[in-house]
């Protein structure tokens, strides 16, 4: 193949993924239709994640007015928000609860999109940007966890970053040092400290949200360009208009989500789910309290990490990442039935590890 041909082919490839003739209000909004069938509920998951992202933006900006990203003041400023600022406890709890809900919505969205084969041609870009969004969401969760600078935050971050360094032992020669260098670049100094806090703050507040918005733009554009994937094998019961019928239903779902989030955030402080010593200010000279754990959405990775040799997890997560990125090409000839079974298995694994992870851990470790 010569150069002009390569250019021509890639041009055709991009043109098929981003058809210019469809980039109009009438094609993307007025004419778009949504299939109605037994799996239609899955079409709301992406919108729900988007809604929670919006909540995170608003509450996050509100928190910025009071939060102070220094090791001496971070914890005190968070306490100040919860205990003294009028409405601060609601804002902070909404931020904490909505982050969990957003990640739950994103996970379900990923699994249902997989089960419905929503990644099939020409929607590869939608899927790949979605996987990138998943990564950014987890990154936001990880960086945000450190910011209150309490015992569990700093210690869990230490553990998380240390596992980056652990990779070094499997690399040959001079490369063995690379993961340590990467780790120290991320944390900015030899141990988790002020430099780490500043970096995580910048990541959490500016860099990752900007990356999120850019990727989200691409994701939503391709969703609107190609319309909803049909999702099932047979013909759908009927089609409904995206605008306004489906969009109004989407809004109603958001309304429900908001009320649930509001009531929970108002009535259940997020920290009441954990033991109180974990939320004391980080004390670098004291011993680490029991029960240091990452947030629940990392359990699926954390408990296997505790139980199995590190290299198993390393290989496993590398393969998982590669499979997620390559899904549109790996599974392009797989039937929806097989995909659904795979998705159910994955959902089962996530559910069991998240809910019963601790029991499983104690079962094997005594």
């Amino acid at each position: 193949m010569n150069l002009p041909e390569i250019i021509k082919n890639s041009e055709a490839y991009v043109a098929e993924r981003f058809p210019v003739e469809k980039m109009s209000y009438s094609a993307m909004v007025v004419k778009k239709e949504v299939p109605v069938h037994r799996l239609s509920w899955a079409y709301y998951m992406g919108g729900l994640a988007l809604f929670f992202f919006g909540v995170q933006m608003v509450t996050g900006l509100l928190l910025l007015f009071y939060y102070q990203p220094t090791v001496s003041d971070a914890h005190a400023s968070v306490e100040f928000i919860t205990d003294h600022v009028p409405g601060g406890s609601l804002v902070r709890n909404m931020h904490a609860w909505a982050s969990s809900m957003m990640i739950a919505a994103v996970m379900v969205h990923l699994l249902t999109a997989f089960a419905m084969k929503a990644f099939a041609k020409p929607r590869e870009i939608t899927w790949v940007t979605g996987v990138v969004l998943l990564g950014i969401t987890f990154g936001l969760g990880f960086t945000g966890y450190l910011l209150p600078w309490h015992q569990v935050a700093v210690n869990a971050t230490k553990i998380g970053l240390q596992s980056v360094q652990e990779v070094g032992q499997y690399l040959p020669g001079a490369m063995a040092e690379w993961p340590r260098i990467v780790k120290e670049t991320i944390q900015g100094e030899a141990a988790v400290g002020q430099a780490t806090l500043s970096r995580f703050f910048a990541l959490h507040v500016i860099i990752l949200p900007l990356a999120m918005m850019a990727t989200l733009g691409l994701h939503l554009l391709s969703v609107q360009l190609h319309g909803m994937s049909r999702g099932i094998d047979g013909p759908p019961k009927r089609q409904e208009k995206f605008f306004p019928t489906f969009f109004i239903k989407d809004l109603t779902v958001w309304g429900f989500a908001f009320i649930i989030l509001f009531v929970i955030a108002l009535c259940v402080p997020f920290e009441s789910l954990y033991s109180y010593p974990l939320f004391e200010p980080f004390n670098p000279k004291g011993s680490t309290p029991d029960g240091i754990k990452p947030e629940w959405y990392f359990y699926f990775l954390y408990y296997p990490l505790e139980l199995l040799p590190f290299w198993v997890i390393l290989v496993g997560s590398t393969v998982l990442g590669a499979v997620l990125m390559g899904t549109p090409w790996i599974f392009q000839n797989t039937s929806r039935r097989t995909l659904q079974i795979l998705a159910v298995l994955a959902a089962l694994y996530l559910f069991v590890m998240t809910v019963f992870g601790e029991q499983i851990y104690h079962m094997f470790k005594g």
Partner: protein
Amino acid sequence: MNSKASNPRDAGTPRPGKELAEQFLNFPSVPLCLCGLLVFLLSSPSALAYPEFQAFVAKSSGRTVNCAMCHANSDGPEGTGPGQIGHLNAAELERLGRARSALQPGQNVDSPILNAFGNHIIKSIGKEKFVELKVSPAHLADLLPPDSDLDQDGIPDVREYLDGTLPINHNDGNPLLLFRHNFRANLVAIALTLAATVCGVWGLGHLLHGLAAASRIKDTED
């Protein structure tokens, strides 16, 4: 649990000696040793923590618990940190002495090494009874006043003691009980928010319907 009760902080360089240490560099000085001795004298006879209660609560509730449930410092009373014996000034030491002599219930206790809940315990049952309870920490729950709720979060202190949650933090407690209490307390706000959300979603929905119909009319006219 014992490892938690110990205090790593008092083992570091004694604070007053640090500037001196800078002056004398690698030359240990007599004043420095004296300072260390002073800290030692202040802190060593204070081994009066009661880890029995902590162990009981941690075991019965399944939650991680530390000294901060009753003490001012989460590493307990020993040491030189804030709220620890090595950190007290003369007035606070006097308060400590008075609190330690409150053997009978009903005295106004304001010990600088205890938090509000710790003081509440000593005030309610007296020091003598409290020391007796070391052998059966579960009975503390029967002796404390059942209605007292120091943090006003709707969960009585006794219940919080058994649950292993902090009785002086209204954000800490059994999530279900907290939900019940806060839901009742915020019913008006919740009802108004519900009304606003329903109103807004209903209005937006109709507005979008109208917009769609209007743009259809425009299309047919064109």
